[in-house]
């Protein structure tokens, strides 16, 4: 009941295109949903996050769309660039400092020049 399911597993997008990664969660008690970006050999880096009382959050080229009734949220990367090529993880948590993050399986994004 604490799973976060992420799709697709891999994604190839042309430079300038829109990359869309989807996640679905089960636990309605989650109240914090971050996205992490991970480059090879590096740790996950917090990219953007949202609380369930907001339907959309935008930071630069990155947007989270959140659908509370469907228990789904997605990451949109506008004007995708080759430097965006990385693995992206969604996660859910109970929003406290001591709580665990439950990660999705990850999406490997390749942006072709």
């Amino acid at each position, binding site marked *: 009941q604490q799973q976060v399911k992420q799709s697709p597993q891999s994604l190839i997008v042309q430079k300038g295109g829109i990359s869309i990664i989807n996640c679905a969660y089960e636990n309605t008690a989650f109240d*914090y949903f*971050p996205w*992490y970006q991970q480059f090879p*050999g*590096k*740790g*996950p*880096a*917090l990219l953007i*996050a949202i609380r369930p009382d907001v339907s959309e959050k935008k930071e630069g080229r990155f947007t989270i769309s959140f659908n509370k009734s469907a228990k789904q949220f997605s990451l949109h990367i506008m004007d995708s660039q080759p430097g965006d090529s990385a693995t992206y*993880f969604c996660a859910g*948590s109970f*929003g*406290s*400092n*001591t*709580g*665990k*993050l*439950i*990660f*999705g*399986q*990850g999406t490997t994004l390749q942006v072709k020049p």
Partner: protein
Amino acid sequence: EPEVTQTPSHQVTQMGQEVILRCVPISNHLYFYWYRQILGQKVEFLVSFYNNEISEKSEIFDDQFSVERPDGSNFTLKIRSTKLEDSAMYFCASSARGFVGRFFGPGTRLTVL
């Protein structure tokens, strides 16, 4: 920019040996975590630590694992008797009071032979 650091970057050990993975969290952070990532799989929570005690641990974090904050700057993960299945990338993370985002270190790759 402050960052979480981890040592060593790669640790090779024999099955049954003890290993200690070291982390220096961001200096004003109060909450500390260990996560692991088996090659090609998602990031999994191991343990959270606050005020010198474990706040939460996963089922992975059995009696073979322990954590310690031996001084004001280091945070360690000890695996008492390593198994082949402990081979993974281990990430330390920290967070500040009032900000639930986790900041991850670059990881230690543990290889158990």
